[in-house]
Each structure stands twice: as C-alpha cells, then as structure tokens.
C-alpha cells in the first residue's frame, strides 16, 4: 500500500469526525511514514509499520470519544433519581427487565447509579460480598404496563474507569451499552431482544448472548471473546490476545475484523460472513446458505472453510493446511503460499495451480466450482 492509499483509507475510516480531527491525525501518520522513508525504508514497508488502517483509526476514534465524554461529564450532576455508591466492589451484577443499561466511566472517580424515566419500576441497589447488585423490582399493576411509553427507561451506572473482576448483566428487552475505559476479568452479558454494544478490555473471558438483538463488540486484551445471536448481526472488532474468538448467528450476519487469537470460529446458518485482517492458529468458518468473504485471514495451523450452498471467497488468505468444502457453492481463493492440492468434485469444475508447497490444501465440492490461485 502506498502512503497516499493509506491516508485515503484512513480518511474514509474517520469520516464521522470533524475536518480538524481528521487533518490532525492524517498529518501525524503522514509524518510518521515520511520519517521512515527518510530513514531509508521503502514506502511500502513504512506504511506497513503503521499497522492496519482500522487499528490506526481506532486509536484516533478512541481519543476523540474520550474528549467528548469528558465534556459531557463536566455538566453531569446527579439528580434525585440517583444513588451514590460509597462501598468498594470488585464484581457487578445487574438484573433488569426492560431498561436500557449503560455503563459509563465517571469523571470524578465516584460511583453512582442514575435512573431515568423508570416510573414505578423500582431498583434495589446495594453492595454485598464485594458485589454491586442492581436489580429491578417490577411493582406495576397489570394496567400500568399498558400504553405507549414516550421516553426510554434507562439505568446508567457511572463508575471509575478501571479493572473489575466480574461483570454480569441479564436483561429481557433492554439494550446494553458499555463505554470504553473498563477492563473485566470475566464478563457475561445476556439479553433477549436488546442490542449489545461494548468497548472493553477483556483479561480472561467475555461472552455476549442476544436472541434477536445485534451485538457489536470492540475488544482489547488477551482474553477470549464469544458472541452469539439468533437473528441479530454479530460484529467483533480488534481483539489482540491469545484467547479464542467465536462469533455465531443463525440468520444474522457475522463480521470479524482486525483480530489476533488462538482459535477463530465463525458460524452462521443463513447469514453472510465477512472476516478481515485476522491472524490465528486455527480458523473454522462454517455456514449453510450464507456467503463467506475473507480477506487477509491467516492461520498458522489449519484453516477450514465449509459451506453448503453459499459461496466462499478467500483473498490473501493462508493456513499451514487448508480444507475447503462446499456442496453447491463456489470457491474462489487467492492464497499467500504454495500448497499440495488434493481435490474432488462430482459435477463442478476445479482449477488449481501446479505448485508443491509444504502444506496441503484439500478441496471438496459436489456441484460447486473452485478456482484457486497462489500469489
């Protein structure tokens, strides 16, 4: 990639920001690339040292978000509907029926729970055994549940931006959002119909489950990440650890971006799958009727991609050994290194290059076509 291509791509990623923020970060990366070229590095290598465009953009976006968050905090004043928590806690447990649950870093390091428009849904909030518990107690009579609510019920937990041991949130129809700045050893988020949006550092394990909601997880840290939804879309961005990454949806789409992990698993039934910039030891990609599109997915061990009727498209991908299988879908792959090719098909047409690499690439189709090329 040339310097100009990198800067153009970065500008694209940052388009939601103000022109001033964009110009400042473009000037910064432009200088970093020029300095390397001046140091005798080829342009392409200098650009490569900036890392993926997405991670460069992530740093800039996180910085701008922090700025806006701080200014929001300065005007924040706890009202009557808020409870200040003075006891220390390591664990957080939130159980709620339908409120929108938000976790936000507090400006002054204090901990505070704020309720908005919760009406007659009462919340118990206490610290017990180093655990902060927030639990909704629905005291409404049946007729109070009827009608249209014009304002969203919201529970916001402001707490110091630091590390916590466990986070457990379970809600029926509410959304869950976790702002950037927190780290968790173990986190489990569950919602039936709500969406989940989080940005967090995962030390050991993070699991997110939604039945019909969408999941967007931007994760850092060495822990493993598992996100699954029945009909919602699942997106995992930016894991950089040695843990496993698993994303699953039945009818929703799955997207995995800029991750480093041990075991990468992506599964859909009818949803499509997009995987880009992923480095792992083993990759298992599996769909029934969805299409698979992977770019720069590299497995140091095995790379398995299976589909029934969906198409599989791999660009700049590689694995020490590879196994590609479809029934009626087509396979198109551009691999990074030569392989020994083994293939079988009933009625499809298969074309592979005449190469002899160390690893093996096995291709099986019934009626699907396969076309493999090596860089």
């Amino acid at each position, binding site marked *: 990639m040339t310097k100009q291509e990198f800067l153009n791509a970065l500008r694209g990623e940052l388009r939601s920001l103000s022109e001033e923020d964009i110009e400042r970060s473009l000037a*910064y990366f432009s200088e970093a690339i020029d300095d390397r070229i001046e140091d005798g590095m080829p342009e392409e290598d200098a650009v490569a040292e*900036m890392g993926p465009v997405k991670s460069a953009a992530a740093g800039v976006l996180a910085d701008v978000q922090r*700025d806006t968050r701080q200014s929001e905090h300065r005007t924040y004043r706890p009202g009557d509907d808020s409870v200040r928590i003075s006891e220390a806690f390591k664990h957080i447990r939130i159980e709620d029926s339908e409120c929108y649950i938000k976790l936000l870093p507090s400006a002054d390091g204090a901990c505070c729970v704020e309720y908005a428009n919760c009406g007659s849904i009462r919340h118990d909030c206490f610290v017990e055994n180093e655990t902060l518990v927030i639990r909704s107690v629905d005291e409404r009579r049946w007729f109070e549940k009827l009608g249209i609510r014009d304002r969203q019920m919201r529970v916001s937990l402001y707490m110091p931006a630091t590390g916590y041991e466990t986070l457990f949130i379970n809600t029926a129809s509410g959304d869950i959002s976790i702002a950037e700045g927190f780290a968790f050893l173990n986190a489990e988020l569950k919602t039936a119909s709500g969406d989940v949006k989080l940005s967090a550092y995962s030390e050991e394990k993070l699991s997110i489950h939604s039945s019909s909601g969408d999941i967007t997880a931007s994760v850092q840290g060495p822990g493993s990440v598992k996100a699954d939804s029945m009909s919602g879309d699942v997106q995992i961005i930016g894991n950089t650890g040695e843990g496993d990454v698993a994303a699953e949806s039945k009818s929703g789409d799955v997207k995995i971006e800029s991750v480093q992990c041990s075991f990468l698993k992506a599964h859909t039934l009818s949803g499509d799958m997009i995987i880009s910039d992923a480095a792992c030891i083993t990759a298992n990609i599996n769909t029934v009727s969805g299409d698979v599109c992977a770019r720069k997915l590299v497995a140091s061990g095995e790379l398995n991609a299976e589909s029934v009727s969906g198409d599989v498209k791999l660009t700049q991908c590689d694995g020490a050994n590879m196994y590609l299988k479809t029934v009626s879908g087509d396979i198109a792959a551009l691999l990074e290194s030569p392989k020994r090719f083994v293939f079988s098909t009933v009625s499809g047409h298969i074309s592979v290059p005449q190469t002899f690499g160390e690893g093996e690439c096995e291709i099986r189709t019934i009626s699907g076509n396969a076309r493999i090329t090596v860089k």
Partner: protein
Amino acid sequence: MDIQLKRGLLDVCVLASIMFKDSYGYRIVKDLKPYVEISESTLYPILRRLESAEMITVRTAEHNGRLRKYYHIEPAGLERIESFRSEWKEIISIYNYVNREDDEND
C-alpha cells in the same frame, strides 16, 4: 501485567523519552523500542491524552521541506515522572519484602 499499571507505564515511558530533549513521533517509537514495543497507532491517543492533561505541548517545525511535530515536556509532565519515581520506590520495597530471605533465628 495489570492493565492500569501497563497504561500508566506507557504514559511515563513517553514522557521519559522527551524528558531531556524535545522529540517527534518516529523518534519516540525508536527510542522506546528496546524497552517497550509501541506503534504510532498506539502512541497517538497517548500523546493526545498527555497534551490535554497539559503534561506536554506540541510545536510544528519545518524539516526537509515538510512539517514535523515536536513534543515538549511541561512541568506537569515532569511531576508525573517524579511521582512515578516515588511510587516505584514503594513497589521496589514491596518487591524486596516478597523476595526476602528467612533470616530469623529460632
């Protein structure tokens, strides 16, 4: 390593790299390389954070017909390094305590 500890250490590393002399992005990355692997993408939010905390200031200067940003440490930045030094003394004394020999005679 503990996350908060690591984040705090990176801030101190960047401040230490401009402690004696103003420096620029690539130079900071190169200077820190033997101690901590950091890329410009990681460095960007750190510099911005230090700038908004008024621990550093930025000036733009011409270099070989293009612009380069130089970072300068401010008193608040030097104070941060100083508090790191005293925090570190505590950590070292805890470390020594953890590693102490059994020297009590019965």
